[in-house]
């Protein structure tokens, strides 16, 4: 299980990455992240929405109200903005470098 601190750091990357696939509302976003990470990353409502609002303020994502197919529920769908797309690439790079560094560290530890 991944610790809370690491999770917090990866959360924005996870949200930006999942939104790269297409616009999603909060619940679906959390569900897909949990499914794709096999439960390693799980967003509760309390963790997800303050982060989404923060990312929206930074203009990385944009939310708009949409009505569900059945027409009985209004949901706020988030989509990636050009600024968010621009942010995604360096974020991926940073995390990739971190994981590579940790792998190297493991090799050193095992030597």
């Amino acid at each position, binding site marked *: 299980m991944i610790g809370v601190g690491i999770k917090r750091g990866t959360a924005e990357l996870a949200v930006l990455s999942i939104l790269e696939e297409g616009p999603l*509302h*909060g*619940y679906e976003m959390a*569900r897909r992240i949990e499914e794709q990470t096999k439960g390693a990353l799980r967003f*509760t*409502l*309390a963790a*997800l*929405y*303050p*982060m989404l*609002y*923060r990312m929206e*303020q*930074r203009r990385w994502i944009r939310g708009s*109200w949409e009505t569900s197919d059945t027409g009985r*529920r*209004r*949901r*706020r769908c988030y989509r990636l903005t050009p600024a968010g797309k621009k942010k995604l690439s360096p974020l991926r790079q940073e995390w990739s470098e971190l994981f590579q560094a940790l792998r190297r560290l493991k090799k050193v530890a095992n030597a």
Partner: protein
Amino acid sequence: MPDWQALVRSQLDGLALKPHERAEVIEELAAHLDETFEGARRQGFAEQDAAQRCLSEVKDWRDLRRRIQTARTMENIMTNRVKQFWLPSLLTLLLSMGLLALIQIFGPNPWMVARHSGWSLVAPVAVVYIPWLLSLPLIGAMGAYLSNRAGGSQRAVFSSIVFPVLPIWSFFWLGFL
């Protein structure tokens, strides 16, 4: 099914946002709980267990309220402060200083002001550039326009006008002490 709207509204009571923003947050969080509940029911949870699962999504409502508040307003305030005060102020300061430098090089001779002591002039001597002084209201007006356009309050607009005056005034005040 529990009334999630009522629950979220009561728990987020005191969320200091504009009424329509608060209503949107409540609707969005309630919709999330609603879907969590339905998802749990589809997985075979009993109604009570599904509701419990939804409630476990938020351990501390007060903390959530604080974090939503911060996320939706603090950065707004910072952005607004930059747009309404710092940007116009620094621009007016930069323009006024740049123009002063240009006038010093290319402009007419300045008007010299000095303190008299008997028959002799005593330092410090103030050097007044009339064209520069005449340009200041225009630069101030530009700062005011930018601040006003960004939705600045009267205080922010006024502050961005007088911002370049403060360092200059302090300099003269210290000089004449």
